[in-house]
């Protein structure tokens, strides 16, 4: 049987193993003494940048109404069919509002198309990434969970105004 040819023949020192072990231990020791980058989640929470695409939310104006006019474009553009909108008439100047606005978070793929297509800047991607459900029903977010005051979304809205054309 022919001897197997190695790609690289080990040198004498390498064949002794001891220097290599020492090198490895040195690296380990160095890492032990360097500052830790592990985040102690959930005690410490990650604060994403403005460009982060967390769960989509609806912008709530300071007077408490939603900005959304229920045009249904987000629902149309959604590649995963996560959004359902039912419009109704309102006495406000905007004429229509979403009587029902539901996002199925099991369907949502966080692509941000809804935010991109929205003519009213009414649906934006938030920084919220903590999404836990125990059943299908609770994964469907209605207006109660979706509406977020406009002040809390300032970061994202500024980001959009700066970069969205």
């Amino acid at each position, binding site marked *: 049987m022919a001897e197997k040819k190695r790609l690289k023949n080990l040198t004498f020192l390498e064949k002794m193993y001891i220097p290599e072990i020492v090198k490895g231990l040195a690296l380990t020791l160095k890492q032990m003494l360097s500052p830790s980058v592990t985040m102690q989640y959930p005690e410490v929470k990650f604060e994403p940048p403005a460009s982060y695409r967390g769960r989509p939310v609806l912008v709530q104006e300071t007077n408490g109404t939603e900005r959304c006019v229920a045009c249904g474009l987000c629902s149309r553009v959604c590649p995963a*069919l996560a959004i359902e909108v039912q419009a109704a008439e309102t006495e406000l100047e905007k004429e229509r509002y979403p009587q029902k606005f539901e996002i199925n978070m099991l369907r949502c793929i966080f692509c941000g198309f809804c935010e991109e297509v929205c003519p009213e800047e009414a649906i934006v991607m938030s920084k919220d990434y903590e999404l836990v459900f125990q059943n299908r029903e609770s994964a469907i977010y209605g207006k109660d969970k979706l509406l977020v005051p406009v002040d809390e979304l300032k970061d994202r809205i500024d980001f959009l105004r700066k970069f969205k054309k």
Partner: protein
Amino acid sequence: MPTITIDGKQIEFKQGQTVIEVAYEAGVEIPHFCYHPKLSISGNCRVCLVEIEKMPKLAISCATLAGDGMVVHTNSAKTLEARNAVMEFILINHPLDCPICDEAGECKLQDYAYAHSRGESRFEEIKNRKEKRVQLGPRIKFDGDRCISCSRCIRFSDEIAKSNQLTFTNRGDKVTISTFPGESFDNPYSMNTVDICPVGALTNNDFRFKSRVWEMSFTDSICVGCARGCNTEIGVRNNEILRLTPRQNEEVNSFWMCDNGRLNTFKNVNAEDRIDGTFVRKEGQLQKVNWDEALEVAAKSLKEYKSGEIAFVGSAFATCEDNFVLAKLAKQLNIASVDFARHSVAGDQDDILIREDKTPNTAGAELVFTKTNGAKLEGIFRLIKEGKVKTLFVMEDDLGSINDEWEQALGMLDLLIVTATNSNKTTALADIVFPAASYAEKHGTFVNFQGRVQRIRPAVSLDEMDRALDGMNMSRWDKFGTKFDRWNQGHKYDAKPSWKILAQLSSHLGGKIKYEMAEEVFAEIANSVDAFKGLDYDEIGELGIQLKISEKVEK
């Protein structure tokens, strides 16, 4: 024949046709707002400008008669420039409110702005504001901002509905539509203006904001409001009918339908009182049972009576197929008394569309019942009163609501079996109730007062159906929905077409009536009823076919 050249195509035409008509017939669409084939030419939108060689200026194709040897360019640089300029003009004061406009998705201004416009506005001034949400009539809301003053609605109310209720007021950029003082835009055809409005200025009160048009599926159907049988399109979302719109058929209804047909003929399909499942009277109460039990009980009870004691009543609301199978089952049981009720409202007729006969299929029911020679409806009524007829089978008709005497007579029966779509006085008295599919849930044919046979198709799914497998039209939601999606949980009624119920009843009675599809029933009608000879569903097609029964034809 004179010839015109449009975009290099040589087209023959008839003298008197306008350029836009000739182009349309040849498949060249020239953009237009104010032009409508059934209305007079107004020529005020100017978007149909075309270049005609040897003419000094561009001409509007809707008001220019085609001439022999004319050479027309609909896409030359000059035409496009003019079209873009006109679009820019129209868009100056048109609000950018497509997101809240019901017309979005089927808006001609939107389409043309996309296809023929510069893409951005150079207009920096403030747009004109006009009155919004004006209730022009009981069924129509008007948005002044969106109106592009094409005058289609005004011409419609003058020329087609003959009601002269609308007019322009003010001039220049302040021009708007209003009714004459003290008038309300309430004529029985008013809602056709919503369809012909090229923008979203006129909106349907009933449908307003209910759904975006791209969320619905559309199915060709026939209006069941009267014997005219206007061709319609049923708009469905989440298995619920949201809108009926007319579909063009020059032989029947042209582009139009009446408001009553549009608003009131579909509401019972998803109504609260819809019959959902089979019911049998036990201890004085109608109780829900399964299909097999109900059919078994019906068959067993029918066997207890002699054929002379039983009468069958068909329906002018049901399809030819339903009535045919009813007649066949009557024959199987040797029952001579088979007829159906007429529902005519004397005087409620005009020379536009509305007919006195308020059923869609009187002519069809007459045709399939011609071979029966027993007692007619009046005779059946008398026989019930005399106690000679003890059992009645009523298909899809509310005999109890004809008058009090009928209601009493139904109460005298020993056994009343009913197929019905909704609860009514007759089902309240019935011993066995079978849930019937409505006209929007089955295949079938109606024969209108002209003797024209037309098809209906399922737009709403029943419990026993599957949109994909049954070849029904589907919206994007229908295609991708699962049982876990809330937007896909529209109720499916546990009902069957009457012909199917009758066929199943027949087999429980030891008969041989067996059909899988409405089309098979129609094939047999075509074989056995002379008027339908040689016809099939494909032949009837989208627009129906005139039957060869000349004496019935009237315009």
